[in-house]
């Protein structure tokens, strides 16, 4: 029997078939892990968006109270007050749209535009309120503006975390080999970050600086 083994030739094509099969298995495993990673990163930034959502809602909920208190003192400044309410409602719908689609560039651009406009309107409100010392001294007003300030900080923090998560997703999606499979799995587009619009940047510098 030994001579049978000694004489046998190695069959190259069979080895080749086995090799291809092994490679195939490896590729399949790779594809599975790429898919899971894409799901993981995308769920990750969606979860982070939920955190921003919480803070933005908080901001939106504070504003009607603020306007109510201010109305008691500066009833003539109807234009300014109404502008704030209008901007706030715009921001609320912008948030709803973005929440439905957290990675979508258009929705997020709409959201940051609306929030920026809201910051602008608030800035103008506080600027006008400077002329009403009674309003400044009101306890509710002080508490509400303090809450607003801290909310701004939290929004900035949550936004940072969201943008980091989006960056991580995008980097992974664009790397090799995920880029080959991403389109196949339904992740053909980069996720968008929540940018700070120029208006918002300018007015952010204003709102926290208000001292009561």
């Amino acid at each position, binding site marked *: *029997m*030994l001579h*049978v*083994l000694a004489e*046998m*030739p*190695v*069959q190259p094509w*069979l*080895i080749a*078939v*086995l090799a291809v*099969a092994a490679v195939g298995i490896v590729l399949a*495993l790779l594809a599975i*892990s790429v898919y*899971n990673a894409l*799901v*993981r990163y995308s*769920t*990750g930034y*969606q*979860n*982070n968006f*939920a*955190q921003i*959502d*919480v*803070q933005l*809602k*908080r901001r939106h*909920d*504070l504003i009607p*109270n603020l306007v109510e208190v201010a109305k008691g003192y500066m009833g003539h400044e109807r234009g300014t007050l109404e502008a704030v309410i209008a901007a706030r409602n715009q921001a609320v719908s912008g948030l709803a749209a973005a929440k439905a689609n957290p990675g979508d560039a258009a929705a997020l651009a709409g959201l940051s535009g609306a929030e920026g406009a809201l910051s602008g309107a608030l800035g103008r409100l506080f600027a006008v309120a400077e002329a009403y010392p009674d309003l400044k001294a009101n306890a*509710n007003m002080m*508490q*509400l503006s303090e*809450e607003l300030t*801290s*909310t701004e*900080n*939290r929004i900035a*923090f*949550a936004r*940072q*975390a969201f943008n*980091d*998560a989006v960056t*991580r997703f995008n980097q992974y999606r664009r790397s090799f080999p995920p880029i080959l499979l991403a389109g196949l799995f339904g992740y053909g587009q980069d996720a968008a970050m929540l940018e700070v619009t120029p208006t918002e940047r300018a007015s952010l510098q204003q709102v*926290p600086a208000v001292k009561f």
Partner: protein
Amino acid sequence: MLDFQAQQDQARRRTGVLLAMYALGLVVVAALTAPIFVLILVAVTNSRSKSAEAVFHVLEHPVNFMATGWGQTVLTGAALFTAAVMLGASLHRLAVLRGGGGVLARELGASLATAGSEDPQERRLLNVVEEIAIAASIPTPPVYVLREESGINAFAAGYAPSDAVVVVTGGMLRRLNREQLQGVVAHEFSHILNGDMRLNIRLLALLHGIAALSLIGRVMLESGRYSRKGGGLMLPGMALLIIGAIGAGVAALIRAAISRQREYLADASAVEFTRNPAGLAGALKVVGGAGPHGRVTSARASQCNHMFFADGRASLASSLLASHPPLADRIRRLDPTWDGRWPASQVEEAPEVGRAAAPWAAAALADVRTSIPLAPAATAVPARPAAANAGSAAVAGWSAQIVLQRVQSARTRIDAIRPELLAAARDAFDAQALLLGMLLSRRPEIARAQADAIADTLGVAVQLRATALQRLLLVGEAKETRLPLVLLALGTLANLSPPQYRKLRDALDRVLAANTKMDLFKLCVQRMIAAHLDARHGGDARAVVQYYSLARLGPECSTLLSAVAAAGGKELTAEETDVLVRRSGEPLKLPGLLRGRSAAELRAVAIHDALARLGEASAPLRRRVVECCATLAGADEVLHHGESELVSAIADALRVPLM
């Protein structure tokens, strides 16, 4: 409490036996498959037409074949190859599963439950998780919800407590009341603390290794079958398939048996946490009564059947392979008076109004108190250990006293926290500021340096908030609620992004460096923060054990025990400290190595390093050290709340669950 210890030991013993059987099974499978690979090699290295012939030749004269050098090489090679395949597959699976609990939760498409959620049931869930986490003295893990899933189930995932997450189905949120939810969450926490997930992951990985062999066999069988001339591969292929299948079957049986033991253990531990068997029993009854509607149906979630609270599979035909004990058995162990009838499927419970819906709404700017506390308020527990015997039973009694006190007061402690501090602990931005504020010194020069460090790394806004929160923290009753706040804040900070985490760590290091004389509690907090944040964000959740004996850690033990003595509030002389340290340190078995250090000698850095090095000792040693600290703390016969908090902090800094 001691009865629970006995149960735990029994479950651990049984697990050990089963693991040994598992290992034996692996060896047998490997031994059986090596010859198969030999045959495969023979078949493969022959021409197609002669392969079947060659294989039969080998089978007829195996001894001759094995006697040759060629035969032995092939056999060794085959054995190694088998081992490599099994090991490779196991490691691959292990790597995937060890990615962390959050990884798995997100892969299933579960969404994070946040404190500001609109759904009152999610907020209720978060409150429950917080209570149990505080009772167990671990940071609140992230909580994920499988919202679309209407089955009633939950699981805990992750490799270690600092890595853990809890995942709950939407069906569970809607169908269980608060008491039952609490029982389930406590059950999941028990899994986390008993290391069941780690065990399960290892077993799964090994199982995967055996299954890989069977897979290869199947591939060969089919390739042999479909090719007319490839007959030689069929026989070894079939043999491999059969052996692999049998091996995998046996391994699965053993794994299921281990899993059932751990489930009983988790049920028992849950009762220890909540002191309320009715909650968990009620939840199990609801699951049973829900029938097929209670089962998990989504395909992706069914990957995790093994981890679920109750067996989610539709058919429980093979009870030997079931990963969970039968529901009826579990209910009877918890509630011996049960009559065996399942409750009718109920309408979904209306959620109670717990925490305020929108804490920032104007009306709720006032104080918000929570729902009914579970247990009477904590009082100073007099020092009378449960067991009558002296020695180790007494020491166990001290740890037990501390746990009892925590369990009874977890809800009350959370309620006692000032709302501003509580809200701060639940928000990521403020949680950072809260932890930093806790570490700030009361001495102005040092506080200023620390504030500068914070402003440098994290920004002025954080620094201002930290200083403001520090003021709140120094107010009278706030001091007693520091540990729960730390645990809550650490839970919130689990969701930081990597750049944010790095900045925070940087700030923490600089704050510590600025203070030469930190008190023991702050040092423990600092270590807790470092350990938990690093584990959750940095990478390997497993700390590498450096010390298996305390022989080289004498100075560190002395330092720690002296620090505990110094924290007792009374001014002690060097001799008194020495006596106390030696007496309480007896169980450590370090004759002559323990030396009390007076308060003046103790430096913050030394204590910090002592905690760090003791943290690298093996688990039994760490437990012993904590128990000695507990004895020392209780040495003046009354366990004050502050001292129990200190011992809890030490236990957490050394990663010893006080159970």
